[in-house]
């Protein structure tokens, strides 16, 4: 089941000499092929994961327009400016609002659908699974562009349907109205990534042994109590992972937001990633890579804090549960 755990193997590089009695140098030499094999991947990881992480701290203390010559160390100046930047705080808040609304909706809805599709006697399950998963494999940026047409107030199909069924009497400007723009994007985001949460839940549901259901059913339990008493407690440990992955995903919305609204109208849907992009690469004014890095760092630290807090809270909750079981 656990693909990820790496089993210790007794096979040593080269000869099967016992570990004990060999100097570190001998052991390193014996494993030379191992290091050689890891090198390419480690280089790519160093270049595109570790280096950027470290450098994003350094850049945050620079005043830098992107040309290597004019870097200037400004200390905490970028952060001081951020704290009084209204656009930064608006974007910051919007990203969290987006997360707080979109993540629970997606995770819960995905669980409901996964429970329905997990029933092995329902032969159309795989068919619907394919349909619900389809948006996941497509390009967010292109979906975003198609959605600008789908939600267009000028003859877009959604507005046409709403008008035809008399649900509205004039077209709704979903993406052009500051009150609806961000939430339209959030809706599309839920639709786009729903399938991933569903697949995670389906994988989690595999751990529930089918005969538990059979036994409970013989005892006369109905479907709701089956899920409440058997399924949910058993998939509960997976919920934390699924929520965490979905949270990280909800901060990765650049492709959709940039193509659907560009952060507009009047910055009404400018989430952190779009704010960072606008300051670093946007076409208005001089690029400010240092300032954008500071914003990214500040936000990144908050996100890390939330993840840690969540992990801590879950551990507490788990400890409490095991204690309750023991007493």
């Amino acid at each position: 089941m656990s693909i990820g755990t790496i089993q210790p193997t007794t096979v040593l590089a080269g000869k099967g000499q016992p570990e004990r009695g060999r100097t570190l140098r001998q052991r390193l030499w014996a494993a030379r092929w191992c290091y050689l094999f890891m090198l390419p991947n480690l280089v790519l990881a160093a270049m595109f994961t570790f280096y950027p992480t470290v450098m994003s701290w350094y850049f945050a203390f620079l005043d830098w327009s992107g040309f290597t010559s004019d870097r200037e160390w400004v200390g905490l100046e970028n952060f001081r400016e951020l704290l009084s930047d209204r656009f930064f705080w608006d974007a910051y808040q919007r990203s969290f609002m987006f997360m707080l609304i979109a993540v629970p909706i997606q995770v819960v809805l995905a669980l409901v659908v996964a429970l329905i599709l997990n029933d092995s006697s329902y032969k159309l399950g795989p068919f619907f699974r394919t349909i619900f998963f389809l948006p996941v494999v497509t390009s967010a940026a292109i979906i975003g562009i198609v959605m600008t047409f789908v939600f267009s107030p000028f003859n877009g199909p959604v507005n046409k349907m709403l008008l035809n069924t008399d649900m509205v009497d004039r077209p709704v400007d979903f993406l052009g109205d500051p009150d609806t723009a961000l939430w339209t994007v959030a809706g599309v985001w839920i639709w786009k990534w729903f399938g991933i949460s569903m697949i995670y839940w389906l994988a989690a549901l595999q751990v529930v042994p089918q005969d538990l259901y059979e036994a409970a059913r013989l005892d006369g339990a109905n479907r709701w109590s089956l899920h409440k008493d058997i399924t949910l407690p058993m998939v509960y440990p997976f919920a934390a992972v699924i929520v965490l992955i979905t949270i990280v995903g909800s901060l990765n919305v650049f492709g959709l937001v940039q193509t659907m609204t560009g952060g507009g109208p009047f910055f009404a849907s400018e989430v952190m990633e779009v704010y960072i992009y606008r300051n670093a690469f946007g076409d208005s004014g001089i690029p400010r890579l240092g300032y954008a890095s500071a914003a990214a760092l500040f936000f990144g630290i908050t996100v890390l804090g939330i993840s840690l807090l969540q992990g801590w809270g879950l551990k507490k909750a788990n400890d409490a549960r095991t204690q309750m079981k023991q007493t």
Partner: protein
Amino acid sequence: MAFPSISQSPTSYHPGDTKRWWQSLTRGTRLRAIITTAILLPIGFGWIYPFLWMVSAGFKSTDEIFRGLSLIPADPQPQNFSRAWTDARIGEYFLNTVIVTLGSILIVLVTVSMMGYVLGRYQFPGKKLIIVLFAVTVFLPEGYTIIPVFELVNRLGLANSLAGVTLAQAGGAHVVMVLLFAGYFAQLPKELEEAAVVDGAGFLRVFWEIMLPLAKPIVATTIILQFMHSWNAFLQPLVLTLSRPDLRTLAVGIYAFQGEFFTDWSGMAAAATISLAPIVIVFLFLQRYFVEGIAGAVKS
């Protein structure tokens, strides 16, 4: 087994014998299947409606898109696709995307399988450190490293080249894929390489001729995941081709032309259809690998 009608297991169902299977179900199960389908069918239709609308709009004239909601074009206009291919330079972007995608798949496949092989089958000093380092990287969203990546590619002299985009797309720790390979290699019997070593095969040959061919399912999963990643990438290729419009990938190219051609709905829909078609077709035929690759993340 006292109540076979309740403990109806899917193994007693013979493929092709739908009618008998249907009759073997209890009335409750049957009713539930009908109700479930009645609810899921309209939702499922709504779910893929944006795609259906897009393909249909790609075959209509812009005039017809504005007029009605029917998904069947009254007068199919295949020239929308040729117009998008040449005038909107989708052909060029398509080729760029193919190059970047194939290149990054090749790089990732080689590096990740080697790493996974070593981690899955060998003990060596420093292994724990590497695993910890990798575990930390899992929660790094792309947006926050785009500036250093941009700077690094610039410094390597690969700015505004397809090589730079390809390398950036292949870059990273690829933790999930490494773990998939490691887990797969770890469970293969060790007699495999012992026999080969007796025959005089070296480390490289054992890996290349014996181990890697056995890992075909993970190879397939890796190719699919990387295909999805590179084909759909937006932020990196956008930033890395800012001053070279001719190197744009599909997602970036269509985004760039959104402003210019915004009145040409049919052309844009055709362009979007061309861009999404390859990944959707691959998904429909190989969905097992998509699902396994993505589910692997939560299992690990």
